[in-house]
């Protein structure tokens, strides 16, 4: 589709907080989901008479279900600590992309209907009625938040705009206003098993092709098994790993790690997707239904370990929510949780990130590498938001930062960090997360990538960095698309296991 022309921001040598440019992104809106897409996943087809009351009723329901929303609607003091923290504000200057202003789009409605001050003194506290004009602003600006949680790091009360955005999107879905990209994908995952809509035969065919390619490259029979009952590991990976570049290079990397370590593994055609877009639209029920596929696949195949591939939001859902949603984890005392716990190997963390698995093997000396095979690459690492601020790896807090970096250092010789304040817990979103990875939001995606592009540009200039590794399917797809806008080569981005794949020793060809 054609996007209206826009100007790519200029890269500056140091970050500059833009001046407020009111309405700069007011035109940015995603496509609306068709009634077919909406009804297929249980939402009303379109906005109909009386939606205002239904929206307020839904807000009331969410306020009773989520402490986060209830507290965050009350606690903000407008201190402005978050005002310069969102990559979309930094890239566009639109003040409604300041987290506080984005939250206030909902807070002003909350105040009007749920607080004493807003009911009786609306003007004084900026309370407004729910109206079409308000909804239009919600539609625009709650689809300009990638739910990356950077603002929640800096808020003195930990107010997480992602929680507010998710609630807003759930309210909009509940009155029949859904986002085409996210809701169409959720339909596909229910119908076919993955976000890309790859049916089982095509998946089997692709994996057979990968076996051939890998045999050709290495001379070794590295397997890509599908639906193998009794395999030790069930690998749940984003479906982009099957078809997209550079994603597939990491899939080959996982397969080589399993091969070299002698771990039997399998993919599942039923659960051929790690991504869970239920998170993006804030729907607990959708997120749960999607997560239950993984549980069912694990039970059917009898897997002893569940390992998750390189995908940021998927890892947040897996690490933080799977135990809650689907009983994948430890510590559950109810029959539902115990059924799966009895099958899973208690010696391993369930679920395990592929980086945790590889890192553990490296530490135990089970993998050997020819690091110089990556010598053509000068590498930096982009922390993906959901991994950095919504999950963990390993035993200690911050393992999500050290483990991928230690893997990179174990498989390559040239590594440089981007500037502090742009990595670790303060990392910038790629600009395409949270269900915004769609061409109808391309301007937003390009501009939202600005802070990351500036940090990257600095290490390119200073150290000659030519490869930005990351462990997220959305980051990879987003950067592949937006790097060229900033004058970089799209092949500069790739996975951590893409580097592992290049350097790993597989033993003698058969």
């Amino acid at each position, binding site marked *: 589709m054609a996007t209206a022309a826009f100007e790519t921001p200029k890269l500056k040598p140091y970050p500059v907080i833009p001046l*407020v440019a009111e309405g700069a992104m007011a035109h940015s809106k995603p496509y609306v989901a068709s009634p077919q897409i909406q009804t297929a996943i249980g939402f009303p087809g379109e906005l109909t008479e009386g939606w205002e009351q239904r929206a307020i009723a839904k807000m009331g329901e969410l*306020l009773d*279900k*989520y*402490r*986060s929303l*209830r*507290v*965050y609607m*009350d*606690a*903000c003091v*407008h*201190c*402005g*600590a*978050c*005002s310069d*923290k969102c990559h979309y504000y930094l890239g566009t200057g639109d*003040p409604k992309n*300041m987290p506080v*202003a984005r939250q*206030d789009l909902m807070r002003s409605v909350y105040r009007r209907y749920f*607080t004493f*001050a807003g009911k009786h003194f609306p*003007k004084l*506290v*900026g309370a407004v009625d729910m109206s079409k004009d308000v909804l239009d602003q919600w539609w625009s600006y709650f689809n300009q938040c990638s739910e990356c*949680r950077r603002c*929640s*790091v*800096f*808020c*003195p*009360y*930990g107010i*997480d705009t992602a929680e507010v955005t998710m609630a807003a999107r759930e309210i909009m879905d509940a009155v029949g206003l859904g986002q085409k990209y996210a809701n169409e994908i959720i339909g596909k995952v229910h119908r076919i098993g993955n976000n890309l809509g790859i049916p089982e035969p095509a998946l089997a065919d692709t994996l057979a092709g990968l076996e051939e390619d890998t045999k050709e490259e290495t001379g070794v029979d590295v397997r890509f098994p599908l639906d193998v009952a009794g395999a030790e590991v069930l690998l749940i990976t984003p479906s982009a790993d099957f078809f997209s570049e550079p994603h597939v290079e990491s899939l080959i990397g996982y397969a080589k790690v399993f091969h070299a370590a002698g771990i039997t593994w399998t993919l599942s055609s039923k659960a051929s997707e790690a991504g869970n877009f239920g998170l993006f639209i804030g729907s*607990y*029920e959708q997120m*749960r239904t999607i997560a239950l596929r993984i549980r069912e696949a694990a039970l059917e195949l009898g897997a002893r370990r569940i390992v998750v591939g390189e995908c940021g939001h998927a890892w947040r859902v897996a*690490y*933080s*929510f799977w*135990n*809650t949603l689907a*009983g994948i*984890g*430890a*510590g*559950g005392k*109810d029959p539902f949780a115990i059924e799966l716990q009895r099958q899973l190997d208690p010696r391993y*963390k369930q679920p395990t990130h592929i980086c945790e698995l590889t890192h553990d093997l490296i530490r135990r000396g089970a993998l050997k590498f020819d690091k110089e095979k990556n010598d053509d690459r000068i590498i930096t690492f982009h922390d993906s938001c959901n991994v950095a*601020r*919504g999950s*963990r790896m390993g035993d*200690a*807090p911050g393992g*999500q*930062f050290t483990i991928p970096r230690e893997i990179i250092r174990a498989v390559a010789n040239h590594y440089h960090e981007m500037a502090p304040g742009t990595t670790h*817990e303060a990392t910038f979103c790629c600009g395409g997360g949270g269900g915004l990875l769609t061409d109808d939001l391309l301007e937003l995606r390009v501009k939202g990538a600005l802070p990351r592009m500036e940090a990257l540009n600095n290490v390119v200039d200073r150290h000659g960095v030519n490869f930005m590794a990351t462990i997220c399917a959305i980051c990879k797809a987003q950067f592949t698309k937006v790097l060229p806008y900033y004058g970089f080569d799209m092949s500069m981005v790739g996975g951590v296991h893409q580097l592992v794949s290049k350097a790993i020793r597989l033993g003698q060809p058969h």
Partner: protein
Amino acid sequence: MSALTIAYALLFYAATAILVLGLGVKIRSYVHTPAPLKIPTTPAPVTRGGVALRLVREVVFFESLFKSSKWTWLFGWMFHAALLLVVLRHLRYFQQPVWTPVIWVQAFGTYAGFAMVAGLGGLWARRFLVDRVRYISTPSDHLHLALLLAIGMSGLGMRFVARTDIIALKAFMLGLMRFDWQPLPADPLLLLHLLLVATLMVVFPISKLLHAPGMFFSPTRNQSDNAREARHLAAWAASLEK
């Protein structure tokens, strides 16, 4: 008993009731609303003890605010720390005999009034000088600052410019607490100061001042990071499994 004394006595009973009941209702709603998912902003502590420490750092040092904006932190921390000293110092008007720690804090509390006003001035200046903060400021934000500033200035005025009959005031306050009303001195500055304080008490449970209890209930800050080790299930979420 003058009409003034009766009016202020009733005002303070009402303000206290609204503050306590209003906060009680709000805190009850925070306690009773479940947090169905594990959403600590990571890296997060993995134990309850670690979480307690994280909250202490937030409450005492404003750790997150320090990371985000040094100016806001400076003025905000200065105001809150000074306010604490000022409030502690004021305890002497509500007790007889006065606790020793309250006697110790007297000198600091007196001069903290200036730091409080300076901090508020800095916070208010940001609302005019920083374009982003100007954009998000509402009439209510300005009024909150005006109210606190007026309380501080009227207090300092009574301490350093036009002294009020503090003995009589203390008798009035103790009388309120013992339900044995004593006359309130008809000093305009004092009446203003007390009126503004009562206003603050009334506004507290219906305004952004709820950030004070709210921060203890913020799931991104008060949850431990142990999602894989313990199953976390809210009641309404568990009912989906039935």
